[in-house]
């Protein structure tokens, strides 16, 4: 098999070219009468045998040189095995699965693994009497040339030649199941069933594969195109914001880089979004994922698209060196503070909370914090807040509870500061009214009679979860200074995620909990801030900021990345309530031009507009526009599992995964000699040059 078979044809044509040129440019002989031809004939006869030998040698060397140079350019691939020949007397049905996932684009010794696999697969798709074949091109969705095995070898081979790497993760099990159906459909007596899989057998794709769907008598041949030692690879696995991106504020970004090599690598990633671009740097540890962080300059609210790209780097798989990404820059949040405390009472708990919230917004947006008196409840005003902060509300009536739950379902977050006994009742009503949409890991109860919480300190802290990592190593010192009072008692709820208890008091009652559920989030801060020193602590405002941005403003955010080849569904923002006027566009990561997508669908549903695609194309970007306004965007990305090029060894298949079936595993690229297998082209080149040198030597020897 040749990597560039077209070069063979050119070489054959080139070998004949000197002959054609010689025939066309042969000089017409000049006629001359000579007294006798005797001496001419003697001289010609004397030279003829010498000249014949010389001319033959020259022609041979020249033709060989052209053919060898053409073969060198064609890059032959050696050690392309043939399938075990079918038993001469039996009919054979053979299904070949060719892995076309992203990892097959990795280059080993300069040869793409898919090209190597193509040659191997071609060997198994040669015509033989009694043989029926089919080819399955396997990535996220397996595709067979035919619905069953057939004898149309030319069509199968044509599809094989046109097979390309797809930027998708391999769904090995689906491909095997498809092959199993084809093989099982052949019910003829005595038929021999064969399954050939040509792949790099990535661990991430093949570690859990199950061959049991195949007919029991199926002979399974695994042809690996991966080298024994995996090729080192560096890839970008994720690009996104570290939290909520807000207009007018710098945005924290994080880039996850996978280093699949044995040595640490200094990496530089260029990150662009819209018109802004920064570089983040770091040291990627070997065989690990490393998160690099950076700060993007402030941007206007709206959708920003861009890419993250490894700078100054080349490795065996270049497709994962660039990753498209999007971010939604939100407008500054608005807060609604629901309380019964009089506004003029200072310093009340609500007063302190209001001042803290006002510190979170721009000075020009102080009206983003609206105070609502529960006694003068206004549902319209309540609906204006992105986050609803509840503090000392007294007993909330059903109307208010219903409003809060409805707004939560629509993505509004609730921060409930539980200070007094009535707050326990309010929380129970909220959880009941949510119908299971909001779940807390604890039940809050009033402190038992005679029990007061005063100057309480915190005990257990989940320091790795927001809001605490922000404070770094100073967290213990800062928390040790807190003196908290009031609040509720709490009891853990069985079968709820205890990880959502972010902090406890020393008496093990919950101080800070977050809810699990869909829609907007619920965070309970269990303390009377008016009687605690937390508002006076320097951590109060950043603590509130982290809580709000990580749990209350981001909980409605859907994943902005979609793996290529997978079905894609996205619910557009509630502000987008109609399909009319919307257009879906996509652009490839290598292109700067947006084109209208025919593969994407916008569907009007009861809850709003949904954006759907059967198989996300890419890698690239997609967006939904209404006029010039972008209302949604997404990034179609290469699944990060394809960057890890480690393969399963043959004994894993033969001993564990094959079950009771006979499996033969063959590596077509032998470890240390893989270079020599693929360096045949260099030897052909040397031989071609030697032929040219030999031609000169022959001419000199014959005195020409």
């Amino acid at each position, binding site marked *: 098999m040749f990597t560039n078979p077209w070069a063979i044809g050119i070489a054959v044509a080139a070998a004949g070219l000197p002959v054609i040129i010689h025939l066309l440019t*042969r*000089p*017409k*002989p*000049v*006629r*001359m*009468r*000579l*007294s*006798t*031809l*005797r*001496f*001419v*004939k*003697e*001289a*010609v006869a*004397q*030279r003829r045998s010498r*000249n014949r030998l010389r001319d033959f040698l020259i022609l041979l060397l020249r033709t060989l040189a052209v053919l060898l140079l053409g073969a060198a350019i064609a890059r032959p691939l050696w050690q392309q095995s043939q399938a075990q020949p079918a038993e001469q007397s039996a009919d054979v049905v053979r299904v070949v699965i060719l892995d076309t996932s992203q990892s097959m684009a990795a280059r080993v010794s300069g040869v793409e693994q898919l090209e190597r696999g193509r040659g191997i697969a071609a060997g198994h798709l040669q015509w033989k009497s009694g043989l029926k074949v089919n080819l399955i091109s396997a990535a996220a969705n397996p595709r067979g040339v035919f619905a069953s095995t057939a004898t149309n070898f030319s069509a199968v081979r044509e599809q094989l030649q046109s097979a390309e790497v797809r930027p998708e993760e391999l769904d090995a099990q689906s491909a095997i199941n498809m092959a199993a159906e084809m093989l099982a459909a052949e019910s003829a007596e005595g038929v021999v069933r064969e399954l050939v899989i040509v792949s790099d057998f990535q661990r991430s794709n093949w570690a859990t594969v199950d061959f049991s769907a195949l007919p029991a008598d199926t002979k399974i041949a695994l042809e690996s195109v991966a080298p024994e030692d995996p090729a080192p690879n560096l890839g970008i696995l994720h690009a996104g914001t570290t939290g909520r991106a807000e207009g007018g504020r710098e945005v924290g970004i994080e880039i996850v880089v996978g280093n699949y090599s044995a040595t640490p690598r200094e990496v530089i990633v260029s990150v662009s979004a819209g018109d802004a671009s920064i570089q983040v740097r770091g040291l990627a540890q070997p065989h690990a994922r490393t998160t690099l962080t950076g700060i993007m300059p402030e941007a206007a609210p709206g959708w920003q698209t861009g890419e993250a790209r490894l700078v100054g780097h080349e490795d065996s798989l270049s497709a994962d060196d660039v990753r498209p990404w999007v971010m939604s820059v939100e407008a500054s949040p608005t807060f609604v503070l629901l309380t019964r405390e009089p506004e003029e009472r200072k310093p009340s708990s609500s007063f302190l909370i209001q001042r803290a919230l006002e510190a979170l917004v721009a000075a020009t947006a102080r009206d983003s914090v609206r105070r609502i008196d529960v006694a003068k409840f206004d549902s319209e005003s309540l609906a204006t807040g992105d986050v609803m902060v509840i503090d000392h509300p007294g007993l909330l009536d059903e109307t208010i509870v219903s409003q809060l739950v409805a707004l939560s379902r629509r993505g509004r977050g609730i921060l409930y500061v539980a200070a007094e006994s009535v707050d326990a009742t309010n929380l129970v009503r909220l959880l009941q009214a949510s119908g299971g949409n909001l779940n807390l890991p604890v039940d809050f109860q009033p402190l038992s009679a005679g029990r007061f919480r005063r100057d309480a300190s915190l005990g257990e802290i989940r320091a790795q979860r927001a809001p605490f990592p922000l404070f770094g190593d100073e967290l213990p010192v800062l928390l040790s200074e807190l003196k908290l009072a009031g609040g509720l008692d709490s009891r853990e709820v069985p079968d709820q995620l205890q990880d959502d208890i972010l902090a406890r008091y020393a008496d093990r009652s919950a101080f800070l909990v977050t809810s699990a559920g869909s829609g907007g989030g619920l965070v309970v801060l269990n303390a009377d801030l008016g009687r605690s020193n937390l508002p006076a602590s320097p951590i109060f405002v950043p603590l509130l900021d982290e809580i709000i941005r990580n749990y209350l403003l981001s909980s409605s955010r859907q994943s902005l990345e979609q793996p290529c080849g997978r079905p894609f569904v996205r619910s557009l923002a509630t502000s987008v309530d109609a399909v009319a006027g919307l257009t879906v566009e996509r652009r490839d990561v290598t292109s700067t031009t947006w084109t209208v997508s025919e593969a994407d669908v916008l569907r009007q549903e009861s809850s709003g507009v949904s954006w759907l695609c059967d198989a996300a194309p890419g890698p690239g970007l997609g967006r939904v526009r209404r006029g010039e306004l972008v209302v949604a965007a997404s990034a179609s990305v290469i699944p990060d599992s394809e960057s890890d090029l480690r393969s399963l060894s043959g004994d894993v298949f033969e001993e564990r995964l094959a079950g009771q079936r006979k499996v033969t595993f063959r590596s077509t690229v032998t470890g240390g000699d893989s270079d020599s297998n693929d360096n045949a082209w260099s030897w052909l080149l040397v031989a071609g040059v030697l032929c040219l040198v030999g031609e000169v030597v022959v001419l000199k020897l014959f005195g020409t």
Partner: protein
Amino acid sequence: MSVVASRKFLDLAALSSLAHMRFATKHRIEGSYSGRHRSRRQGGAAEFVDYREYSAGEDLRRLDWKVLARTGRAYVRLYQDETNLLCTLAIDASGSMQFGAASNSDSTGSKLEYAQYLSTALSHVISRGQDQVGLAVLTDSLADFFPPGSTPTHVAQVQERIEGIQTTAARTMSRSLQQLFERQRARGVLMLMSDFLAEDVEDVFAALRLFRHGQSEVVVLHLIHPDEERLPTGSAWRFDGLEGEGHIDCSPAEIRAAYETGFRAHCELVRAMALAAGCDYRRVPVSVNYLETLGGFLVERAG
């Protein structure tokens, strides 16, 4: 008195420069008439036979001073031990003698034309020396034979026949020489003008040895055209043989050295065979003017 007709190859004006020269033979000959040459027959008393007009260049001791004083005209006395020369001019008329011609119908520049000029001049010189000259045209067989004679009419006929010589596609010459030997009645001088490119060169010299055995002198004039000695330059030539051998395509550059070696070897062979046969050999490049060739030849023979 001799009557000299107008002939194509007879340039009297050019030959006037050789008027003082005579054709001499190095050997004793047998002639019918008294001449300038020493007779083969041994004479005892030199009996006076006749007078002959004195020719410039002759030995003055032979001059009859008394007749000169008496008549004012120079005459030499002829004795019985002196006789005349029987000279036969044998001209090769094979196809190869046409080499160098301007075209098939025009022999100008060919070896044949050169032989015609040379032989015509020789016939004139020989006849002026009161010797007899004859002609033989050699092809595969004796194409023409005119026995030696010395009368002006005879010489004119010889010259006329020389003028009418046409080449044929003959490749052998020995049979014609044998026929000539059979028809020759007396000893004399045979002057063979040929390029010796016949296929039977050895047989030719075997025939010449017959003449030598018959006590005749044989003079071999080997005509060589300069374009025969080396091949032309160029990459592709088609050579057509003049003796009906067909043609051959070749690149002269590849065979030049071998050809010249072969031709040179052939010329050496002809010379060696001529000398071995007891013949006088003279290489005659046709690029040299025939008068120059003739003059040098006569001077050499005069000793």
